């Protein structure tokens, strides 16, 4: 850490190096540069070492271990197993089920969360008194941990929980809601609704920063022409948000594909695998069953999926703008 004293002590060894005749730089300056290099590397060192150890190495390991039979705790070192894990994965019905569930989740959550967040952003973008209060309130679920949110909604979704009581009240006793999380048809929609509730405030902020980049002059010009509110949105706001839009699309998609916490706290993948997900499958294999190699194969397929989908999204949104 002490970059000033360490290099100062070192140059005692450097004068031994004969100076090249071609070097025109005064020795003093070269020494200065060398010292700067050393100090620079000393400052970069800790971060680079940690990133290497905890990002690069595990990323490489995901590739490597997927082709072995590694177990989390095992007396034997892992041995090469070829494509065994992938063969097993692509024959696993649970894996296809998790792909389908995640696709279902993402296809609904992405537009719903982006849309709700945009409406919220438009509502709190107004320069009227009291708007800051609502901005704070909409943001509260974002700072609340997903674990806590899942617990809270576990209660709300009970057969005799808050949601069903409200439904019964609002319909004057005509409708009695289902046991949301124990029903294959309603478990995933319930998780979707809760996830949007938790995440929309986050994307509201990103929409807001996009809205603030749109020039007020455009709106003034539209006003002079007597353009209606919808058309103002359609021809000024919406095109003005194009880069924000692709950003939001990609962040919500990756977040949706990584669905795990809600599932682990609320349903454990059930009922009847109707809410199992890719990350949930990977955790179950790698942690509960200690099959690191199989979990690495799932992680690898998951990463490829994330890469392909966000690549396609980037390509599509780039073409439009």
């Amino acid at each position, binding site marked *: 850490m002490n*970059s*000033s004293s360490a290099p100062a002590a070192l140059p005692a060894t450097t004068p031994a190096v004969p100076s090249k005749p071609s070097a025109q730089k005064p020795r003093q300056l070269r020494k200065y*540069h060398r010292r*700067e*290099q050393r*100090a*620079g590397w000393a*400052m*970069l060192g800790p*971060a*680079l070492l*940690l*990133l290497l*150890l*905890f*990002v*690069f*190495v*595990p990323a490489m*390991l995901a590739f490597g*271990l997927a082709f072995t039979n590694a177990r*989390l705790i095992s007396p034997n070192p892992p041995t090469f197993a070829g494509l065994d894990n992938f063969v097993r994965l692509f024959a696993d019905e649970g894996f296809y089920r998790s792909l389908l569930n995640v696709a279902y989740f993402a296809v609904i959550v992405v537009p719903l969360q982006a849309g709700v967040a945009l409406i919220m952003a*438009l*509502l709190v973008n107004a320069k009227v008194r009291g708007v800051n209060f*609502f901005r*704070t*309130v*909409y943001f*509260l679920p974002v*700072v*609340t*941990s*997903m*674990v*806590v949110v899942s617990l*809270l909604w576990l*209660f709300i979704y009970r057969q005799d929980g*808050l949601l069903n009581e409200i439904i*019964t009240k609002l319909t004057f006793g005509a409708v009695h809601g289902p046991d949301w999380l124990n029903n294959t048809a309603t478990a995933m929609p319930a998780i979707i609704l809760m996830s949007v*509730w938790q995440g929309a405030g*986050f994307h509201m902020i990103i929409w*807001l920063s996009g809205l603030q980049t749109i020039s007020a002059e455009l709106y003034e010009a539209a*006003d002079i022409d007597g353009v209606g509110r919808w058309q*103002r949105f359609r021809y000024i706001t919406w095109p003005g948000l194009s880069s924000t839009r692709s950003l939001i699309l*990609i*962040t919500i998609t990756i977040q949706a*594909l*990584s669905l*795990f*916490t809600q599932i682990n706290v609320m349903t454990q993948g059930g009922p009847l695998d109707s809410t199992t997900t890719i*990350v949930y499958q990977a*955790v179950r*294999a*790698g942690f509960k069953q200690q099959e*690191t190699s199989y979990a690495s194969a799932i*992680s690898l397929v998951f*990463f490829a999926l*994330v*890469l392909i989908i*966000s690549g396609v999204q980037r390509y599509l949104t780039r073409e439009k703008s």
Partner: protein
Amino acid sequence: MATTLERTSRRAGARSTSPNPRRLRGIGGWIGRILLGIVFAFPLLFMFVSSLKPDQQIFGDLSSIAAFLPVGNLSFDNYGAVFDRVPAARFLINSIGISAVTVILGVLINSLAAFALSRMRVRGKGIILTLIIATLIVPFETLALPLVWWVNQLPTLELDGFNLSLTTGWLDTYQVQIIPFVANAFSIYLFHQYFDSIPKELDEAARVDGASWFKIYRKIVMPLSGPAIATVSILTFLPAWNSYLWPLMVVQSEELRPVMIGVQYFFQLNVSWGQVMAYSSMITLPVVALFIAFQRSFVNSIASSGVKG
């Protein structure tokens, strides 16, 4: 009645000629804001209010607005019971310690790296920065499982009385909950962006006066980087406090567990929802208090973390 009508019509009239039409004025906007406010605030309000009620009353109040109101038989009994059921104090101390150390080390190590990349002539720094930013596309979920295996292979120094011994495996330690999350590509990127906006003339002048690089970092650049430090602190603190997937896999001992893992204790045997709500409130309110105190920094940090995608 007449005056409200007048006011609304005046507002409606003002809307079409308003110089800033981005304003969504009028009754519709306020109805929308309030409805959404209810949707977002009431579940959390329900959680906090229920934490003060006995179980029976929680269920009794469900069918009326009382579910959201602090009425009836209120007490902190649930909070007391939480401490009997779960080593909650231990979990809180663990989480506070883990988050604090991660934030402090994260700010230090990432800002040092960003300083070198932004300010100093380091060979190959262009490539280094590109490599660091490239890691942002990898979601943690894809690294988590190979990482569990990997940390179990890492050597660790164990102090047993006065004997230092080298053992293998970081599983079930504090360091495994901290060290992997200290260096963060996005924090480096944020610091780098911010340092680039600080005029380099300042440190050149200091160099002429014979100041060391570390002194420039400590005395010139860091004191000018308050907003970046706040942003990185919040972006490091939130996932550290909220972490769940990682400690679930790498921590077995009760005395090392963080707060989020504590929720599991409430579903063994008979569930007391009042206690669940009390524990949930207890681990949420500190973050909400921090958020309300540092609102601007929170919002800025979230806005900048969106850029990550």
